[in-house]
């Protein structure tokens, strides 16, 4: 009975949250705020993807910036140089994401831990260097300009508010989908690979295929996020897609809470919006933001979402594990 009530509370909460998000642009008409929100929505898409490979499956992927760059440039090039509608560009980004996942997933079959991290960093840097130096195609450091805004069957989303509603729709659909995958047998098996890979194989599960699947989900969402970013800014250049960006996405996932959709949303919002709210501190805003992030990491190692799930280990960092009668040197 308690379980049923909790489900109703959860549903009402989600509906209210979506309603607030829908009404927000009508109350606050500042277009700069809308741009920040759009950026947050894009980040949520990417983090939802990263969550599958790094959060659930436990394969450290530090190449998110490269993946996003692939999506951003492919969609931008399809809609500028080839002149296709933007929706086709988004679809191309998704297909590229799918193919990229298949290719990028392969190293993860043989490499673990820090070696996989290095490989994915390598991928990201190579991607950035290619888009920087292939000037005839990508415009080099000048970037790609005049990327068209999204148009839905002739209706151009030419203001940040219109883009906001479209992206909000995409994010809501993706959040529900991601949540369903996490709760399904696939989400479970991703977590199982993180927990104990030998046991997974002994259960007759093709670990290689499953890892590539998790990578593919990450790259599809990463590329889609990249494409959404490109059409929102109408401009992309290589300096956006540095290692800082990859690290930022990782921070979003970790701070919000690994493995859960609400955690991804909270983390992305915090890392995107909080620095903007701290702008009044002028030169010190990034320092203060970093300190806040660090405190969250120390006191809520399971992410901010653990405040609501009861899974928290508040302050565990400071408490010695020693129990009565046990040696502290253990």
């Amino acid at each position: 009975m308690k379980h049923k009530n909790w489900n109703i509370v959860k549903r009402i909460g989600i509906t209210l949250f979506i309603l607030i998000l829908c009404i927000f642009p009508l109350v606050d008409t500042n277009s700069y705020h809308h741009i920040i929100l759009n950026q947050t929505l894009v980040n949520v898409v990417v983090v939802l993807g990263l969550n599958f490979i790094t959060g659930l499956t436990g394969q450290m992927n530090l190449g998110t910036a490269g993946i996003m760059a692939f999506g951003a440039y492919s969609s931008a090039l399809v809609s500028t140089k080839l002149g296709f509608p933007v929706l086709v560009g988004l679809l191309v980004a998704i297909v590229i994401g799918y193919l990229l996942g298949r290719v990028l997933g392969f190293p993860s079959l043989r490499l673990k831990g820090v070696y996989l991290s290095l490989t994915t960093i390598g991928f990201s840097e190579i991607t950035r260097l290619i888009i920087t130096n292939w000037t005839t195609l990508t415009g080099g450091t000048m970037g790609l300009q005049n990327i068209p805004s999204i148009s839905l069957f002739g209706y151009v989303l030419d203001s940040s508010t219109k883009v906001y509603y479209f992206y909000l729709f995409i994010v809501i659909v993706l959040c529900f989908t991601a949540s369903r995958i996490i709760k399904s047998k696939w989400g479970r098996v991703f977590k199982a690979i993180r927990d104990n890979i030998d046991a997974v194989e002994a259960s007759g599960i093709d670990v290689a295929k499953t890892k590539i699947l998790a990578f593919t989900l990450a790259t599809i969402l990463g590329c889609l996020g990249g494409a959404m970013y490109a059409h929102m800014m109408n401009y992309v250049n290589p300096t956006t897609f540095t290692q800082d960006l990859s690290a930022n996405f990782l921070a979003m996932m970790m701070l919000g809470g690994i493995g859960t959709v609400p955690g991804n949303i909270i983390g992305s919002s915090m890392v995107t919006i909080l620095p903007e709210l701290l702008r009044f501190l002028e030169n010190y805003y990034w320092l203060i933001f970093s300190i806040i992030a660090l405190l969250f990491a120390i006191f809520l190692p399971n992410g901010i979402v653990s405040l609501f799930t009861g899974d928290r280990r508040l302050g565990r960092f400071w408490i010695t594990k020693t129990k009565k009668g046990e040696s502290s040197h253990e």
Partner: protein
Amino acid sequence: MSESILKIEGLTKRFAGLTAVNNLSLDMKERSIHSLIGPNGSGKTTTINMITGVFKQTEGEIHIQDVSTESKKTFQIARLGVGRTFQNLKLYDSMSALENLMIGGHELATMSLWRGIFDLKGSRREEKLLKDRAEYILNYIGLSETAQEKVKNLPYGKRKMIEFGRALMCFPKLLILDEPAAGLNPSERKQFVDIILKTFHEGIDIFLVEHNMDVVMNISTTITVLNFGVKIAEGTPKEIQNNEQVIKAYLGDRFKPIDV
């Protein structure tokens, strides 16, 4: 004459200079509990790891019901109907007992992820199938009340039982148990042996590696004894207990030859 469920011929495994298993042959018949015993380091776990494809053998052949496991990976061998437990527990610690079992049954649900995204009804049906099976097995091993508990919070005996239950999820034909009684107290051990016998009587053949001689001598149909990777004896529990070489290498004085 019954058919072989597991047939090993000339199995050898060399790690650099060390020969862990040397020219081992054994023929495990259907409807039997076949035990592999021997002192520490005699190559028992290495043999299990070769049967399940974790290690590739240097030489020799393994057949599971006439299917060669050569060139098959671990998960493919598991799909032939081979379930296993591990000497050192390998559970999914962050998950509940029920979820641990459901992962064991992952292959029972065949829908792909991409189809599952769109087919709401189908994926719900598959989820229910897995859950029903997991609940059935939990009940079977007598741990229904732990379904929602995280396995890392359970006592060792129950954790071992959960691992055993997980191996049962995919309807195995052959169950390979690596030291199931190790670390259990006498009452837990008895409970475990009862469950093993129950599964055996329901049609699952058991390949057992175990150090506890009471367990081995009581439930085995056939016993193979390894010493330094070489098979030194094979036979019924009675024959093994009377075998001079086995007594010298492994059993010691406790198992004195039985007067016939």
